[in-house]
Each structure stands twice: as C-alpha cells, then as structure tokens.
C-alpha cells in the first residue's frame, strides 16, 4: 500500500488543496518548492544543526520499567516532552521557518490550540528575528494561560479568536484569513498534518525525525530497529505522523492512534473524528470531519486543547480507512488517570494530549516479547491548572 501523497496531495481518497484563488500563488509556490528546499544539503545541515543544538535532539527513548512490569511487556517512551519548548511541535516550526526564509517571506503566522505550536513558532521567530502573529481561541487562551504568557514574552502577538467554538478550528480559520490578507509577505506555519497540500506531507516530513530516531535507538537497545507497536495521540495528528512515518511500510509494526473521546464517544461532547466523522472538507483538505448532515462543522470537545479539533489529517484518514493503523480513544477522565499514573510511577508529568496515548496500554493485550513505543509528545506544565483541579485534596 502507498502512504505517500500523489502530485495533487492525495493519500488514497483524502487530501488535496481546496483553497480560494487568493491563496493559490502561495500554495502553488510551496507545492513546487518544498521537496527541493527540504532535500537541499545546505538546508538539511542548518535544520539538523538546530535540531541538535537548539531543540536538544535526539530526544531519549526511555525504557519505562514500572509500566513494563505492570503490563508484563517492554514499554519505551519517546521523550518528545524533552524538546526545547516542551513538545514535538518545534521540529516542524524550525523546518518551516527555515523554509519560509528561503521563500523570501518576512512575516510568520500560526494557529494554536494548546499553545504548544504557538510557543514553538514564537520561539523560532524570536531566534530568527521574524515578526510572529499567533491566532488562538479565547477558550484555549483561558485554559492554557501560561502558554499565552510565554508567547508574549517571546515577542509574538497573540490574537484572541472569538468566532465559533473559540478553539483550534476557529483559530485556524482566522490564520487562513490573515494569510489571504497578507499573501505576499507572509508564511503560514500550520502546526499539524492538516491543511491544503503540501502541508500534511511537509509537516509529516519535518516530524519524521521522531520515527527515524526511534529506529536507530531501538536498534542500539534491542538489536532490532522495529518495535511491535507504536502508539501516539491524534488530534490533527502531527506527532503520530512523525512517530509512524518510517514504519508505515513495515507491516509487522502495529500503528495505534488514540483520539480524544471527551466525555464519551456518544456523549455529544467528543473529538474522536474517526469514530464520529464522515468525509468532508475543512481547512483546505478532504478528510474525515465531524459535521452535521447539512455539512456544517460541529464543535468538538476534549479536556485537552491540542486534541480539541473536529478533523484529522488526511494521512490519518487514509490510515484509518485502509486499516493500516488502529484507532482507539480515551475519554477526558481516562486521560487524566493515565497522566496521574505516569507522574507517580515514572516521575514524568505528561501533557494531557500525550496522556491519551498512554491510556491505550489499558485497552490492548500485551505479550512479554512485545516492544511498545509510546510517543510522549509533550510535557504537562501547561496543564497544571487542569491537573490541580483533579488532585485529591
């Protein structure tokens, strides 16, 4: 099976570039140049150097002893939470900022949900001396206040978005509108594997460093570069795309995506797109989408701002439809419990997003010979307010 995009940006039935004409020149320029730029040795040198010296890569692959004993198997955590700024998001923002500079762009915009992508964008803009505007839903600004403060301290302008559900979907709409209004000088750094072609493929390539490292680290640890399972949470799906990327064609590796079920799949307050969505178009690509029968996009719910999105990247829709990846889900409460458990047993406070992936351990049967890699996509500092509300007094 083929898991690469075709020339029109499709993974199987999903993808494409459904954009208004005002964005066509920008998107076309990106489509025509992203591969050449990314494969340029000078670009790679600069990118890899920054990943090493600035982000702190490679991130450790940590053998989680207590969890492994608990489930009588071998569990490794890919520590993306140890990246500079506290999540995997910066792998992509460094790549895209370098790319934007080569395209001659002088202004950067981004959307953010949990604030991790916004912080990662503001960080690299500060490093590169580029002006940065981040769109963020008002609801998310309230529940991720520390990330708002970080972005401001890094010199970014944070624009509150009050339309629609006041979360990631609407922040993305506003960022796209900004891009339409400033198409000539601005590059839009999309934070996930969503958006019009080439974004899903471009972001997946920048995040693929995660699975490249997992392979070489596992080889060193176990003598085999292939795990039996890779588990990652999926909102739009960028950390999952990065963690799955170099295993997509290794059929013996089970890929497990965990979505946010919010208050429960059938509660009407959920963000589990593959379970509740149908084929539709949002933010420039055809994918699975939570929507009404009339094709209006519905407002999702998750305790985790980073997973509170009614769509999913087209690669993941293809992985779901083709059966290449297995899609599970965790509710708000289950993610919360998984976060508490990891904190106490491994001394790692995970982001609420990543806690969804951890919950998958309770949902599957494990063999002693299994080698399970969980992508710990971010750290939990930004979620402390939410966690504190749930701590036993």
């Amino acid at each position, binding site marked *: 099976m083929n898991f690469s995009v075709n020339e*029109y940006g499709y993974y199987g039935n999903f993808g*494409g*570039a*459904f*954009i*208004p*004409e*005002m964005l*066509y*020149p920008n998107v076309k320029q990106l489509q025509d140049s992203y591969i050449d730029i990314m494969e340029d040795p000078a670009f790679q040198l600069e990118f890899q150097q920054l990943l090493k010296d600035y982000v702190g890569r490679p991130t450790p692959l940590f053998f989680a002893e207590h969890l492994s004993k608990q489930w009588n198997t071998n569990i490794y955590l890919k520590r993306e939470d140890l990246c500079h700024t506290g999540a995997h998001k910066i792998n992509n923002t460094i790549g895209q900022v370098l790319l934007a500079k080569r395209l001659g762009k002088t202004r950067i915009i981004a959307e953010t949900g949990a604030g991790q992508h916004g912080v990662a964008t503001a960080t690299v803009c500060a490093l590169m001396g580029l002006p940065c505007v981040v769109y963020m839903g008002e609801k998310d600004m309230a529940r991720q206040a520390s990330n708002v403060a970080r972005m401001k301290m890094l010199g970014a302008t944070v624009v509150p978005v009050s*339309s*629609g559900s006041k979360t990631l*979907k609407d922040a993305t*709409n506003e960022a*796209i*509108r900004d891009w*339409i*209004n400033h*198409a*000539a000088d601005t590059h839009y750094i999309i934070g996930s594997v969503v958006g019009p072609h080439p974004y899903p493929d471009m972001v997946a390539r920048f995040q693929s460093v995660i699975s490249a490292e997992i392979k070489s680290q596992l080889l060193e640890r176990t003598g085999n570069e292939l795990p039996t399972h890779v588990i990652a949470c999926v909102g739009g799906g960028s950390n999952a795309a990065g963690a799955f990327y170099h295993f997509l064609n290794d059929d013996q590796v089970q890929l497990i995506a965990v979505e946010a079920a919010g208050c429960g799949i059938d509660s009407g307050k959920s963000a589990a797109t593959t379970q509740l969505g*149908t*084929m*539709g*178009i*949002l*933010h*420039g690509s055809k994918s699975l*989408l939570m*929507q009404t*029968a*009339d*094709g*209006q*996009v519905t407002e999702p719910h998750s305790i985790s701002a980073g997973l509170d999105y009614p769509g999913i990247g087209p690669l993941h829709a293809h992985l779901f439809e083709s059966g290449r990846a297995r899609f599970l889900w965790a509710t708000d409460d289950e993610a919360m419990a998984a976060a508490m458990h990891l904190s106490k047993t491994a001394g790692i406070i995970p982001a609420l997003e990543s806690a969804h992936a951890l919950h998958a351990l309770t949902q599957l049967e494990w063999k002693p010979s299994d080698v399970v890699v969980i992508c710990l996509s971010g750290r939990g500092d930004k979620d402390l307010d939410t966690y504190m509300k749930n701590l036993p007094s």
Partner: protein
Amino acid sequence: MQNKLTHLFEQHHRPILNMYCTAGYPELNSTGEVMKALQAHGADIIELGMPYSDPLADGPVIQFSNSIALQNGMSIAVLLEQLLQINPSMHIPVILMGYLNPILQFGMEKFCREASAAGVTGLIIPDLPMHEFENEYQDMFLQYGLCFIFLISPETSEARIRKIDTLGSGFIYAVSSSATTGQAIDMQQQEAYLARLKSLQLRNPILVGFGIKDHAGFSKISSYVQGAIIGSAYILALRSGGDISTITKEFVNTIREKAELPKTN
C-alpha cells in the same frame, strides 16, 4: 450556453450591479423579500450566499451573517425550497455562492439538479479548485445549464486567468485585492489592476468584488469592467434593522447615483 447571465451581459446599457446577501439573513424567511427588493430597486444580479460554519474567504461582516443565518435554520435544502417558491417572480439572474463542504454533503448532482430547477443561473464555489472542477464537476454543471464563476485575484497569473476564461462561464469574479471580503482597498493599486484586467480582452465579462461600499468605488470599477459585486456593505445596512425594502432601495440608489449613465465603451 445562453441563459439569463449571458443575456444580461449582452444587453446591458449600464454598469452591472451584483448584490450579495446571505440566504436566511436577517431572518430565515427574509430571503425572498430581500431578493424581490433588490430586483425592484435596481440590482442586476442577485448572489445568495449559502451559510457555512467556516467561511474562510469571508471577513467579519459576512461571517456574522453566516452564523445568524445558520442559527435561523438556513440550509441548502431550505434555501432551494425558498427559491422554488420565489422563482416565478424573479426575472434577473440568481447565482449561488457557497463553500464546497455543505454542497458535497447535500450531494453535488442533486444540488445542481434542484438549483437549476429553482431557476439558479450560476455557481460560485470559492474553495473548489480548478483541477477538481475539470476532473469531477465541469460536465455536471454544463448538463444542468449552470454557469461556473471562477475567482481571480491580483496575484493570479495571466496564463491562469486565460485558462479560467476558457473554463468558466457567466462572468469572472475578480477579487479587488488579495483579501477576505469587506476589507478596505487601495484605490491606486486597484486601478492598475483594473487597467490590466481590461487590457486582457477576456471572453467572459468581469465583475469586481471585495471591499466596494459606495458610489465612488462602484463607478470607478465600472469604468474599467462591466460592473461590481457588493456584499458586506449591504449586509451592514441590513444589520442596522428596519424595513428591508426601504433599506434596499436607499442602499442601491446610493450605489447607483450617477453611475446610471450609459456606458461609453
């Protein structure tokens, strides 16, 4: 293809005024009243927006009218029913503007068939790319006699404009600046763009939209191309409340003012 739109552009003796309103705004059942008022008071084309939860190419005013219309219960099915009722009293062309997703969920062929039966002349779907249009829908639109109106922007290359000119029909919708709807525009930059559009000598007529709100803007544009599209400014006028017919009459009269003179070119 001969239809109300082509006929209008062949016969017109004054600048063409295409008036936009979101269907189901300000009230669910005001669509017909708005259409009748626009027709009675001097609009040449009526463009009805089919409301969507995520109107990417629209600025705050039309976003607002979209969300009110959705709250009012507007949908494609409801709109097509309303259009079927109003169609016998409409003699000016009616076109529908909307985003692709709700149309896909309704079913593209069913949409084309029912829109055509309800007297619709043309479609504007800003997020339907040319490649998908050619591969999937061109023949269907033709089969149901629906003009497909493409957008172009100041950044659209001449080669692409020429291709759009061969693929599209009815007219070409030229966005006055690379912006979402309702944004202020730079007149000097715009005049250079308008002069370039005029010099292209396209097969299709051109209407310019986005950011036009008064007589000065309308008449400036009409001196270069066939006419203009006005949306946000009219929605704002309706938003202030009051009798739809009175507001519409006043609005259209203000826009037309001295632009009523026969065109010299």
